[in-house]
């Protein structure tokens, strides 16, 4: 899991010819391709909203006599070093992990909006400055920027969220900027200007929605990315502290017992993989359908 948005050269993509026919798009396999990831994302959201409905046991209940129990009918995902039920902890961890992921994405997008709009609308000088800033931020690859912020501001769930958000910002900023540049030159913005709409109205009602629509797909992918980065920080022992159930923190706890209790890391990890993979698949589908829509 490497990527949100590498600095790809900005090239206008030629419209790809539709590869699939209308008939194949209704085949049962394709249907499953949306239903399955949809169910996974739905389950994670449900777990985040109402963990009590799904979790068979108290995620914090310690039972030392049952520590390190392998997966069984009673403990689907086994138990951890204190005999807590890993399955229940994974379910209860969804809320924290999702909150951090969503919060980080929001922070990243907000920063990106400011940068991208300044670059896209502010004229040559501002654009040059924004491009430089994005370039500089890219020189702190991956979670590096997050690690620096944690080193400076200490270790907490909030820092974790802000840090991941800032780390994802340059990728979004680049896309907002190029999107704004495209939309700004579009005929409908020209039309709105000719009609004499005030600049504020053009910005809010015409430019922003149109510049943002293509980004919705990327946001779907980005939330998964943010969850993974937050979990990576948690895995390194930074972020939410035990005994709170959170996927990253659980991975960190399991890391120390890998050789005797693989399930402590395996199952939280599988959950993260399935969740992000589902978001990726759904995001792609969304992208295909919007691309197809644009062709019509």
């Amino acid at each position, binding site marked *: 899991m490497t990527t949100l948005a590498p600095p790809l050269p900005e090239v206008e993509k030629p419209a790809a010819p539709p590869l699939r026919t209308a008939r194949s798009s209704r085949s049962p396999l394709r249907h499953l391709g949306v239903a399955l990831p949809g169910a996974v994302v739905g389950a994670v959201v449900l777990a985040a909203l109402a963990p009590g409905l799904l979790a068979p046991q108290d995620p914090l209940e310690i039972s030392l006599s049952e520590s390190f129990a392998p997966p069984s009918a009673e403990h689907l995902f086994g138990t951890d070093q204190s005999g807590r039920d890993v399955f229940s902890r994974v379910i209860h961890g969804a809320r924290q992990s999702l909150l951090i992921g969503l919060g980080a994405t929001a922070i990243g997008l907000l920063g990106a909006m400011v940068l991208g709009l300044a670059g896209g609308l502010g004229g040559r000088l501002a654009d040059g400055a924004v491009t430089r800033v994005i370039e500089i931020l890219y*020189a702190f690859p991956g*979670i590096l920027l997050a690690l620096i912020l944690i080193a400076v501001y200490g270790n907490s769930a909030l820092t974790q969220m802000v840090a991941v958000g800032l780390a994802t910002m340059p990728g979004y900023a680049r896309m907002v900027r190029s999107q704004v540049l495209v939309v700004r030159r579009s005929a409908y913005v020209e039309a709105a200007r000719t009609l004499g709409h005030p600049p504020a109205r053009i910005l809010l009602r015409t430019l922003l929605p149109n510049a943002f629509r293509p980004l919705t797909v990327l946001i779907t992918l980005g939330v998964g990315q943010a969850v993974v980065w937050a979990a990576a920080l948690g895995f390194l022992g930074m972020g939410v502290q035990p005994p709170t159930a959170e996927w990253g923190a659980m991975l960190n706890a399991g890391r120390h017992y890998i050789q005797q209790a693989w399930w402590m890391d395996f199952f939280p990890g599988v959950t993260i993989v399935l969740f992000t993979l589902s978001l990726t698949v759904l995001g792609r589908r969304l992208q295909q359908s919007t691309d197809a829509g644009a062709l019509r």
Partner: protein
Amino acid sequence: MNVVLIRRILTTIASAALLLWAVATIVFFLQHLVPGDPAMAILGGASANPPEETLQAIRDQYGFEDPLLVQYGAFLTGLVQLDLGESYTMKQPVTAIVSEQILPTLQLTGAALAIAWALAITLTLLTAGRRGWLGRLGAGIEVVFAALPHFWLGVVLLVVFAVVLQWLPVVDDGPLGLVLPALTLGIPLGGFLAQVTRDEFDVALRQPFVLSALSRGARTADVRFRQVLRHAALPGIALSGWGLGSLISGAVVVEVIFSRQGIGQVLVAAVNAQDLPLVIGVTFVVALVYVIANILSDAASVLVDPRLRHTIGATS
């Protein structure tokens, strides 16, 4: 050597230097935003309860009470002389620690990049541009590979190959110990590169030169390997500089899983101890590697696509 080439090289160096200066400036000011007394951190934190005279001596020694601009000047001067200060916790020059630990990390990331490319090229050559299940299988594998987080893939590989099957050592400084960490790092990047290469491969397959080569009687496998791949590899090569940077960030996690020596382990320890000079030193070196890797990947792009000789640098 013509004038254009020399000017291009000079521009590249200048913009790289500018980028590094900006990175250095950011980390310097971040460091000085830290709440708390750095002298206290050097002496082991407030819990160590150092006497006031010692604190003052440290402040004088490191110049913590000088005006910020003076400290900034001293920091930049040190940087130019490859002096990144002294680690609070290890009481050694940061440059010495980093230069000792960067080699194993570069080995790891280099091996991972090779694996990623081998994977991307294999997947592309075998499955790209093919209709039916083969193409779909290839695309599916890439998506799954690209979505695997290092922290999970590493743990799974470790448990399967080192603990259960015992084919490979859990911890080993030799070449065998490099296999699992490099796979952990390389597989996700390989999946990502393969996605990019596949898209490009599909586009290139529809180009007239493919038809013309085939009509001259060239074999399909030959065309795929010698002509189409050249086109398809370009965006991947351009991304490799960025990829190496992201690998170093991934190496932080991988080195922790496999208890491997390297800059990632140093960074995690430094972050946990709030050893800022060390954190900054590592960051700066990573940025340096990133800049160099990007210059190299630009150069590699030109090697693969001679057309770029006339355009690169002209636009930027």
